[in-house]
């Protein structure tokens, strides 16, 4: 199943709201959306995974790729991930050590307040 991705602005953030399954089929759409958003200057990025039903290593890889791309431009990534089944996969991959998993988009504050740890910190 293809992932459905909707992009919108929530200044200063760009929000990519993702639905569906982030697997080998769905993850490429997220990668493409991230590349498009960052290329358009959206380096403060919220990935809203509230609508994600399933994630495996391909989806995790796409999120790691998003983190890499925003950091290459001194940007920031915030992750909204309320579903326990999705959170658990991030936790098993230890990515909760460098990414804060927000329960809702309203809990994402201003950039620079601990959405993701800097590498090497």
């Amino acid at each position, binding site marked *: *199943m293809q992932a459905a991705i909707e992009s919108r602005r929530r200044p200063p953030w760009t929000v990519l709201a993702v639905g569906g*399954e982030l*697997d*080998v*089929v769905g993850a490429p759409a997220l990668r493409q959306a991230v590349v498009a958003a960052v290329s358009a200057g959206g380096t403060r990025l919220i990935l809203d995974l509230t609508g994600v039903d*399933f*994630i*495996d*290593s*391909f989806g*995790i*890889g*796409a999120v*790691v*790729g998003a*983190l*890499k791309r925003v*950091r290459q431009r001194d940007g920031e990534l915030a992750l909204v991930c309320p579903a326990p*089944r999705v959170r*658990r*996969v991030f936790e*098993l*991959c*230890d*990515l909760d*050590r*460098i990414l804060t998993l927000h329960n809702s988009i309203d809990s994402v504050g201003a950039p620079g307040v601990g959405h993701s*740890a800097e*590498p*090497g*910190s």
Partner: protein
Amino acid sequence: MSGRAGSDRVVIEIPARTEFVSFVRVVLTGAAEIEPGMDSERIEDLRVAVSEATTNAVEAHLNAGCEQRVRVEGSLADDEVVVAVRDEGPGFDPEDLPELPPPESPERLLYESGLGIPLMRVLADESEIRSGAGGTDVRLVVYSSGRRK
């Protein structure tokens, strides 16, 4: 695709197309949900582990140009689900996988792939990969939550 092959066994053969991976997930987790001992968390573990194993098998066929079907078999019992995934790809050395840097390392962001097998091994209570020139067999066992305690 064949249907149920025995009272406690589900056998699926899929074309080597990534679009069929979600179908395998649905069938095997749907079958596991019939077993009263498998609670929702264990079903979710099974769902991800099966996805990883099946995706690897499909990609092995695609990368090798192999037109054979990928075979997935699930054996259901009260206290466990055993999944066997068989591909006819070129094989690999399961002990020779790159070790991922810790998440806090800047180099970690260079690894957008390579998480599938480690994740599969963490999620399954037992995992075995036998691989050679003739293909790869993956065997996963997911216990019921009661058996884990």
